C-alpha cells in the first residue's frame, strides 16, 4: 500500500458522504439524540443517494463497493452522526451472510427486491444469554417436514422494529454447540415474528434497537443459508467483512471530536490567551490527532487487505479495537477541552463520548477482539 492518495473516484464517493453528513445528518443529530427519534426521512434520503446497501453487488441493485470504499463513506457519515450511521450500515451487516453463504438463486430472490426500494434489515445473532460466546446461542430451529420452526429471542438488534428482513442465527441442536448453528433469512411479515420495544440507549439514539421474539416462525428450507451447522462459520466470516467499517465509524466519531476541540481551543480564552496556547491543551490535541490518524490508517490497511481477497482477521480486529478505544479517549478529551461547556448537552461533544462507547462493545466486544488478535498473532510464531 505505498500510495496513500485516493483516486478521483474515491474522492467523489467520500465527498458525497461528507456532504450528506453535513447537510442531512448533522443538523438533526442533536435533536434525534435528545428525543431518541428514528429519522426515517434521513435514512430514505441515504437510500435514494445510493448510500445504503454499499456491499451488495450492482447486479442485485446495491452499490457494489469494496471494503476500502465503504470505509471512506462510513467514516464521513459517522462524522455527521454515529447513531444514524449504525442504522444505515446495519443493512450491510444483515445482507453479508446472504452474499457469503447464500446460493445465487437466494441472492437474486432476496437481494434484488430488497435493494430495489427503501428497506431496512437486521442481523440477528446476539441473545440475552449469548453475546461474545455466540456459539452457545439458544434460538432453536426445529425441523418440520420441508420447513423449520424457529423459536427464541434475539436482543440488542439494530433496526429490528423497522426491518423488513432479518438474517437469523439459530441452532438445530444446542448440544452440538457451534457445530449446530444454522442461518436463515426471515421476513418481518412471517407469522410469529415479534419485534420488541425500542431500547433506551446511552448513545446511538437515532438508531433503533430492540429484541426480536420468534414464536414458532415457519421458515422454508429454501430460506436456509448454506447447510445446517455452517451458520457459525458464516457469522464469523460476516463479521470479518464488516469489522473494518466499525473501525471507520469509530474514526469518524473521533475526527468529529477532534474538529470540535481544535476549533474551540482557538477561540476560548483563559489567562489572557486562547487555550490553544496553553501546553496542557496542546498536549491533549497532539495525543488526539495521533489517535485519529492511527485509527484511520489501521482501518485503511485492514480494508485494503480484505479487498485483496485475504481474510484480514488480524488487521480488521486491530483496526476495530484500536479505533473504538481511540474514539472513546478522543471524545473524552474533547469534553475536557470544552471544560464546563463540554458537559452541557447544548454542546455537541458529550454525545460523541456516548456514541463512541458502543463501538467498543458491538460487533465483537474489544475483549474478544484482543483474544482474537493474540491468537492470530501467535499463529505466526507457532
Amino acid at each position, binding site marked *: 500500500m505505498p500510495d496513500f492518495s485516493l483516486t*478521483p*473516484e474515491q474522492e*467523489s*464517493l467520500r465527498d*458525497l458522504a461528507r*456532504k*450528506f453528513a453535513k447537510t442531512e445528518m448533522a443538523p438533526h443529530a442533536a435533536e434525534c439524540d435528545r428525543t431518541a427519534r428514528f429519522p426515517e426521512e434521513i435514512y430514505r434520503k441515504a437510500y*435514494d*443517494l*445510493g*448510500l445504503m446497501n454499499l456491499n451488495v453487488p*450492482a447486479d442485485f441493485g446495491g*452499490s457494489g463497493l469494496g471494503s476500502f470504499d465503504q470505509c471512506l463513506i462510513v467514516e464521513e457519515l459517522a462524522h455527521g452522526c454515529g447513531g444514524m450511521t449504525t442504522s444505515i450500515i446495519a443493512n450491510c451487516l444483515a445482507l453479508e451472510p446472504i452474499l457469503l453463504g447464500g446460493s445465487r438463486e437466494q441472492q437474486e430472490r432476496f437481494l434484488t427486491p430488497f435493494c430495489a426500494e427503501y428497506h431496512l434489515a437486521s442481523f440477528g445473532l446476539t441473545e440475552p444469554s449469548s453475546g461474545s460466546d455466540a456459539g452457545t446461542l439458544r434460538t432453536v430451529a426445529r425441523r418440520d417436514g420441508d420447513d423449520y420452526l424457529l423459536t427464541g429471542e434475539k436482543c440488542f438488534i439494530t433496526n429490528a422494529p423497522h426491518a423488513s428482513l432479518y438474517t437469523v442465527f439459530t441452532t438445530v441442536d444446542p448440544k452440538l454447540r457451534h457445530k449446530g448453528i444454522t442461518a436463515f433469512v426471515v421476513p418481518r411479515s412471517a407469522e410469529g415474528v415479534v419485534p420488541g420495544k425500542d431500547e433506551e440507549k446511552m448513545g446511538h439514539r437515532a438508531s433503533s434497537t430492540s429484541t426480536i421474539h420468534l414464536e414458532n416462525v415457519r421458515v422454508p428450507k429454501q430460506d436456509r443459508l448454506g447447510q445446517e451447522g455452517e451458520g457459525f462459520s458464516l457469522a464469523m466470516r460476516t463479521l470479518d467483512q464488516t469489522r473494518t467499517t466499525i473501525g471507520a465509524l469509530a474514526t469518524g466519531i473521533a475526527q468529529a471530536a477532534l474538529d470540535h476541540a481544535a476549533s474551540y481551543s482557538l477561540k476560548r480564552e483563559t489567562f489572557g490567551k486562547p487555550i490553544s496556547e496553553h501546553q496542557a491543551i496542546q498536549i491533549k490535541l497532539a495525543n488526539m490527532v495521533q489517535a485519529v490518524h492511527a485509527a484511520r490508517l489501521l482501518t485503511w490497511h485492514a480494508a485494503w487487505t480484505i479487498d485483496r481477497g485475504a481474510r484480514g482477521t488480524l488487521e480488521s480486529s486491530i483496526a476495530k479495537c484500536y479505533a473504538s478505544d481511540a474514539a472513546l479517549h478522543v471524545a473524552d478529551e474533547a469534553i475536557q477541552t470544552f471544560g464546563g461547556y463540554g458537559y452541557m448537552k447544548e454542546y455537541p461533544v458529550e454525545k460523541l463520548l456516548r456514541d463512541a462507547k458502543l463501538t467498543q462493545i458491538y460487533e465483537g466486544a474489544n475483549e474478544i477482539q484482543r483474544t482474537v488478535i493474540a491468537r492470530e498473532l501467535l499463529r505466526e510464531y507457532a
Partner: protein
Amino acid sequence: MEIVVCVKPVPDPETRLRVGADGTSVDIEGVKFVLAGYDESAVEQALLLKEATPGSKVHVVSAGPAPRTEEVLRASLALGCDTATWVETPPAVSPDPVSAARALARAVAATPHDLVLCGKQAGDDEAGLVPAALAELLGIPDFSLVVDLRWDAAASRLRFQRSTETGLERWEVSPPCVIALQQAWNDPRTAKLPAILKSRKLPIAKVPPDAGAVPTGASRAAKFELPPPRTGAKMIEFKTPEEAAQKLVQLLKEEAKVFP
C-alpha cells in the same frame, strides 16, 4: 431542446484562503476545486428544463486546466448532463474571462444549442463577464439577472424574467441566446452514488484551445491580499447620537465600502 451549460471549477467555498508563494494569486496547494454556486444552479436549471421537455439534451462545457476541469465535468455528468466537452488550457492557470469565453465559444459553436446557460459569476474571481463575452463571440443576444426560466415547446420560445432594480421584466425570446442565471434560486440536486461511479467511465470530448486569437490587451494579476487580522474596533467619538450616526454611516460608505 439542446441546452449547453458552461461551468468553471472553483475552489471549494469553504477553503481557507492563503496567499500563494509569489503573492499574486491564491495558494491552490491542497485546494479542492468543485462545481459550486451559480454554476451549480445553472446545471440544475439545465436539468430541470431537460426534464420538462422530453427529448432534450444537456451538454456541459468547461475551459480550464487538468485535473480540476475534468473533475467538474464528471461531476456534471454524474448529475445528469448528457455530454461533456473540455477545452484544456495550460496547467495551473485559470484563463481570464475573455480567453475563457473564446475557448468556450469554440466548444459551444461545435455543439447544437438552443440555449447557452451560465451562472452569473464564478465564486473565485467574480468577474461575471463570460456570459456576455460568449454571446458577443457567438453573435447572439445575452440576458442577465434571469429568474424563472421556461421553454415553451409549442411556440419554440424561451420565457423568463429579469430581476432588475426597477422591477421584474418579462421576456420572450427565440433561441439561441445566452442566459446568465441570477441568485442561486433553485435547490441543486446531489448526484447519486451509482451515477458518480458511472460518470468515471463516460467519454469527455476534447476541443483544443484556439491558439489563433492573441489578445492585444492583457490583465495580469499583480497582488493577492487577505484582509489584515482584526486589532480591535475603531471607536467612534461623538457628542450627540446624531453625530455618532453620521460618522458611522460615513465610515461604512467611504472606508469600509459596505453601505448599501
